[in-house]
């Protein structure tokens, strides 16, 4: 593998890496025919990001001849290569990434001004590919906005805020901080922003819906988008399906896939090769919450997060499928994103939407029935 990036693209590459560092601890690098893929996933597998740099991004792009090359390395070590971000475009003329398979080293050479040459030989680990399954096209709702709009919006939320709730109607978008039901509601600060559809470059709301996802991981993409000036597209469906944020231009495509809290208050994982299963909601919310925390704790202690051995071929999850059958072996892999908060979500959701008739069936159902029968809505999972 041998690729060369020049000029301003070196900084873009560096920014992509810094952006990925906000997601996970490791950088997965894959050299494909289509281009260079840089990916990262967080420890709880609830956030996945991928930057695909097409061969045109590079001055020279040479994929490995025999098969695609895949490796992973601690993201900090590659970040150190591009440490001084501010001076990159001033000092670096060319960046060359080469693979030395004999010595198991990835060599990154920065050709800088004044003849200075910086060579970094980084050790890596061979690994299997990392790919989340998602389908932007199948999402009912698509929004596109200038990065400035999103950055300015997100600015209103405290940096410590974990989760944010995004609700859409036919002509409006609301962004609120997500507060846990059990949190002391008298002390919690609630922030709500309402944006009209006119503020967006593209506003296509198929179904009025409300999704809750982690804001922290989103900020990584926003920083990248803001500096590149490219519009950010959001693809999402109903709660439980991941929200996909995308930044594209002719030579690069970035996708951030974030899990959302599902209607039954279980966070749905990105379908990272392993089907995520969650315990049934048969107990009343209070007991259930502690159960979930237990499984979360068990999972944290015992799980060795699997790296997928192949790109899963299962179709995108059917939209009405809300609950999964409990499976023992999978329990260890399922990690809760946060304590379930079903009651709060439903209530709030109900109070905001003006026309209940437009709500999809299952939402109304879950509003009335706190714990529904899993058998009714279950569809066979393909493994």
């Amino acid at each position, binding site marked *: 593998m041998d690729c060369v990036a020049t000029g301003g693209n070196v900084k873009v590459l560096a920014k992509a890496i810094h952006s990925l560092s906000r997601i996970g601890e490791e950088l997965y690098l894959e050299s494909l025919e289509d281009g260079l893929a840089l990916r990262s996933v967080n420890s709880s597998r609830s956030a996945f990001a991928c930057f695909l740099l097409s061969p045109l991004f590079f001055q020279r792009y040479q994929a490995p001849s025999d098969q695609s090359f895949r490796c992973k390395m601690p993201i900090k*070590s590659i970040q*150190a*290569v591009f440490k001084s971000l501010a*001076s990159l475009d001033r000092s670096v003329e060319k960046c060359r990434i080469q693979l030395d398979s004999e010595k198991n080293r990835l060599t990154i050479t920065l050709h800088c001004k*004044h003849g*200075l*040459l*910086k060579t970094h*030989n980084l050790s890596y680990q061979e690994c299997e590919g990392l790919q989340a399954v998602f389908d932007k096209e199948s999402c009912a709702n698509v929004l596109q906005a200038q990065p400035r709009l999103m950055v300015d919006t997100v600015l209103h939320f405290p940096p410590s805020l974990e989760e944010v709730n995004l609700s859409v109607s036919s002509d409006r978008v609301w962004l609120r901080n997500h507060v846990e039901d059990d949190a002391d509601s008298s002390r919690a600060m609630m922030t709500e922003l309402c944006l009209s559809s006119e503020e967006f470059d593209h506003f296509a709301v198929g179904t009025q819906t409300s999704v809750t996802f982690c804001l922290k991981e989103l900020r990584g993409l926003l920083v990248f988008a803001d500096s590149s000036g490219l519009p950010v597209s959001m693809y999402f469906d109903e709660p439980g399906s991941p929200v996909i944020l995308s930044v594209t231009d002719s030579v690069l495509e970035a996708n951030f896939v974030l899990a959302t809290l599902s209607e039954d208050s279980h966070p749905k994982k990105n379908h990272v090769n392993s089907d995520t299963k969650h315990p049934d909601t048969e107990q009343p919310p209070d007991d259930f919450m502690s159960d979930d925390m237990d499984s979360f704790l068990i999972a944290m202690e015992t799980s060795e997060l699997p790296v997928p051995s192949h790109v899963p071929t299962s179709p995108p999850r059917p939209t009405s499928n809300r609950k999964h059958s409990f499976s023992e072996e999978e329990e260890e892999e399922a990690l809760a994103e946060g304590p379930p908060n079903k009651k709060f979500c439903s209530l709030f959701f109900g109070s905001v939407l003006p026309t209940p008739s437009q709500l999809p069936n299952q939402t109304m159902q879950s509003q009335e029935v706190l714990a529904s029968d899993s058998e009714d809505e279950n569809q066979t999972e393909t493994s």
Partner: protein
Amino acid sequence: MPLSTQSQADADQYILIASLDNARNLSNILKAISLRDHAIFNATQNGLKVTVEDSKCLQANAFIQAEIFQEYIIKEDAVGFQVNLTVLLDCLTIFGGSTVPGVCTALRMCYNGYGYPLTLFLEEGGVVTVCKINTQEPEEPIDFDFCSTNVTNKVILQSESLKEAFSELDMTSEVLQITMSPSHPYFRLSTFGNSGNAHYDYPKDSDMMELFHCTSEASTCKYKMSLLKPSTKALALSCKVSVRTDSRGFLSLQYLVRNDDGQICFVEYYCCPDEEVEEE
């Protein structure tokens, strides 16, 4: 100015008086060698030499010529004492780091001789502070015996390019390896850290390279990162740096520093090579 109202009698007792209109011209350069708490002061007719040593392997010297001072009076051939450098720097910057142009701390440094404290009169905006810092018996600085005849390789670089390299050095590496060679890579800084190794190469024809003098042999020496990293402070202040190694592998780094008033001072670092068991 309040400092000049000192009685003449007092002034007669001092064997060393050094005054500066801008104390930063001294404090900045002392910060560049502040590796350790204790500094050995050696004042002569030529000026002030301040030495700091670390574990007998590293020595940093700052030279402030007599011409830099607005007033420099020395009544003996050589005046030597040792003070706590951290305390001295705290005193010199006692009025805080004011970067308002035109506002600076004036200094009058006085020393009575053996056994007496070092007295500092500092004034800013009409406020005068008097500091008396206890002095100790000066230790004899190590003589690294670095003379020009033993120098095998010498390189003079503009600090700008080295500053970037030093700020990016992989701190997980225990050593910094310096290679100087008549052929490629000419001048190379290498680190060997947890994530892999890194090399910074400066070609001899780079416009950052003011002088490149290398004997027929290439020399590669390793130095402990922990010893050399503090030299970054001196590098940050300097505009040029000379890197020399001698036949024993000892390293000499000399920094040309311009102070606030554009005057030139020198800082130098001497470092022993890291001797370790030869590993293949």
